[in-house]
């Protein structure tokens, strides 16, 4: 009948690019889109099958022959007070004693954590400075947050000089800046953003060198690989995915999706062959890049609050996690057991980094303070 012909004609028409008139009509779920989604999901399942085939043993089984770790007593050796609001991020200087920290009220402070002296302070024009990083030379810091930018401040030696005067705007995103990191030099910065992308920037010109698309939601964290060829980095996001990227091509070379919630932190294992992640699902996980799969989960029934940040000790034997229940849990990476729980902060631990020479680690918290922790022998 007439109507039927018109209907089938309409259906056939819909497979081709929509003409302007069609765009205003009611279109049922785009067949092409649904088809693509199914294809993607089928491939993902197949990938998981392939990954599982070579998984012949668990890490903690292999680690049975390794000697267990004794009791760990770790204490706070420095408490840095000076921020007027939640500390959101921190980073170490290569000199192993200085740090930069940023907070909700827009303040960025550079400290000599060893003496606890504040050496520089900058007030950003925005609140929620969620990202900050120390330049490899030690001569500048980068930071950003709700301003959607990443700016570089050369550290002036003249105490009277206003650091903000020499500020250089480098990165521009379309949503908040969640993390930033210098690459091997002061000349390039890698950023991640709430706009779902990561990007690589040339500091001098502010030029975008490469952008990284693939996350389906806010990207919350990133870490550069310590590999020989030094060309990859990993990012984690609200889509529960951890992606490994090639910095030259912009391509996603590996992707892992085993967490049950937002990934707040990613950090490479010191050899570069693996990375750890921390998530709102209260677990930390270890992903091996050669095996191309998750190889360990660090969790406990009594730990129910999200992990905000993770880092390894120098040898990679210990994994430190800062949690939203104000604690730090220390994990034996090989055996999968929790070695120690540290109390001290009076609100969420929002950031955690081990010092460059592994002598201590520093935490920042919503309780406005930073603490430097060491192992007491």
């Amino acid at each position, binding site marked *: 009948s007439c109507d039927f012909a018109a209907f089938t004609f309409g259906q056939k028409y819909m497979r081709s690019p929509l003409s302007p008139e069609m765009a205003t009509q009611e279109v049922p779920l785009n067949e092409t*889109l649904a088809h693509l989604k199914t294809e993607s999901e089928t*491939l993902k399942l197949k990938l998981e099958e392939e990954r599982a085939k*070579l998984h*012949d043993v668990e890490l903690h089984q292999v*680690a049975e022959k*390794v000697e267990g770790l004794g009791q760990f007593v770790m204490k706070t050796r420095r408490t840095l007070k000076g921020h007027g609001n939640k500390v959101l991020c921190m980073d170490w*200087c290569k000199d192993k*004693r*200085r740090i930069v920290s940023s907070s*909700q009220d827009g303040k960025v402070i550079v400290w*000599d954590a*060893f*003496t606890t002296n504040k*050496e520089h302070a900058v007030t950003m024009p925005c609140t*929620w400075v969620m990202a900050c990083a120390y330049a490899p*030379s*030690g001569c*500048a810091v980068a930071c950003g947050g709700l301003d959607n930018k990443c700016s570089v401040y050369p550290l*002036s030696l003249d105490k009277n000089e206003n650091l903000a005067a020499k500020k250089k705007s480098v990165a521009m995103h379309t949503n908040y800046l969640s993390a930033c990191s210098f690459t091997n030099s002061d*000349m390039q910065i890698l950023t991640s953003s*709430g706009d*779902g992308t990561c990007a690589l920037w040339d500091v*001098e*010109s502010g030029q975008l060198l490469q952008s990284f698309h693939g996350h*389906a*939601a*806010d990207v919350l964290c990133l870490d550069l690989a*310590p590999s020989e*060829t*030094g060309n990859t980095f990993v990012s984690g*996001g*609200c889509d529960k995915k951890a992606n490994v990227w090639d910095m030259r091509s912009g391509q996603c*070379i*590996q992707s892992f999706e085993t967490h049950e*919630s*937002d990934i707040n932190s990613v950090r490479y*294992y010191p050899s570069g*062959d*693996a990375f750890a992640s921390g998530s*709102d699902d209260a677990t930390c996980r270890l992903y*091996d890049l050669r*095996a191309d*799969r998750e190889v360990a989960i660090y969790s406990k029934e*009594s730990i*129910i*609050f999200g992990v905000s940040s993770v880092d390894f*000790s*120098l*040898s990679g*034997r*210990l994994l430190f996690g800062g949690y939203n*229940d104000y604690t730090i849990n220390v994990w034996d990476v*090989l055996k999968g057991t929790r070695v120690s*729980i540290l109390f001290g902060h009076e609100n969420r631990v929002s950031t955690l980094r081990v010092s460059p020479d*592994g*002598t*201590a*680690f520093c935490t920042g918290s*919503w309780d406005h303070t930073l603490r430097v922790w060491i*192992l007491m022998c």
Partner: protein
Amino acid sequence: MTINTMAKGGWQREQTICFRKMEKMIVAMQDPDMGMKLRNQRLLITVIPHAMTGHDIIIWLIHKYSVCEEEALHLGGMLVKYGYIYPLKEPRSLVLQPDESPYRFQTPYFWTSTRWPASELDYAIYLAKKNIRKQGELMEYEKERYSLLHKKINHTWDFVVMQAREQLRASKQRRKADRIVLECQEQAYWLINRPPPGVHNMLDVGLERQNNFNLRATLNSDFYKNEIEVHRRALGRNRVKSSICLEGFLKYSEQYQNHDPIMQGCLPSNPWISDDTAHWTMNTEMVPVPTRLRVERWSFSFMELLNDAMGRQEFMLYLEKEFSAENLYFWQACEEIRHGESSKIVEKVEEVYKNFLAPGAARWVNIDSKTMDKTLEGIKQPHRFVLDDAQMHIYFLMKKDSYPRYLKSDLYKNMLAKAIVPQETKKSVFPFMRRQRHSSPSPAQAVAQATEEEGRHKGAG
């Protein structure tokens, strides 16, 4: 720019997960067989049923989750802070006391998750009830909020007062014990959902992650096409068996264990503990004599050697002896291009060509013809990564050939032999006497001085 610290219309993902987990815990605590033993608790002249002591809670948590007392106290404390358990003795202090203080489970009706989000109207009614029930019962901050609400929702104020009166009338008909319990429960609910000033807002989750609004925009066909590409590439990847990979972790941890200060301490002492910076002084970038651990590390991997400025310097000396130093110079020059300013790429590539690649170049590097041809073609349009192939070729050449021979050489062996093994600083007899913590010159200062001196020399010359 407005920030939503409370989700508008949607429950925060992060909160949902935690609340569900806490609720599961609470349900387990009330299990008739494995749960806590509840008893009657006397409160002044009233007897409150189904109560437990702080001590009971902690013991139960210790047994259920195999944790120590400190952790059980912390975990139980969270349950109180989030209002799943409330105190009877000091109802305004949402703290878990590890003693005989009485506590009760909050009724699910008053769980924050059940009644999310707490409504202004309900809060107004609650404050109105308090105000009516006993004049002057409202605290200072509650009075302020009450008058603010009065202004804000003035149009429904009659309703508010009416509701308050109605609820008070209904409660008068309850038994005294039930009335007290209900008042405690309601108070606990509001202490969390409208905390007093100066008290943690437990429901503050920081910046809202607006990923939901992005979703519709990004999940288009391009996104899925990209995903399909990624998955296809991933399927084609070479994978290594777990049993092989995982051994790698064991080896690495073992190799680096002595170098891990958090695990093994460091010599002469950890500066953060002893306040003595000798460890850092001995390990600065350039020292007359390096420490033994440092020199040992150069043998762990080629990357370790190159990442250490002194190691690189030593390796250069070795290569000079072998007449293959141009390889390391080339590699360094390539690094500078890869990590340097975009504006200098063209001139630097020029320099590299002149010094290393051109026929008859002073430091000509021996690259295979295929790579050389490709590189020479590429540098006609120089970009940051144009020398990558050549650099990688030379890197692996050094790694497979020169590096192992360096480790066997006298140069390295001598370095290892004369390397310092610092004496462990004896722990202070008076541990409470703190050494003075000396400041160090800022790296920024060091560079500025260098450029200053450079400037002076240039000026003089």
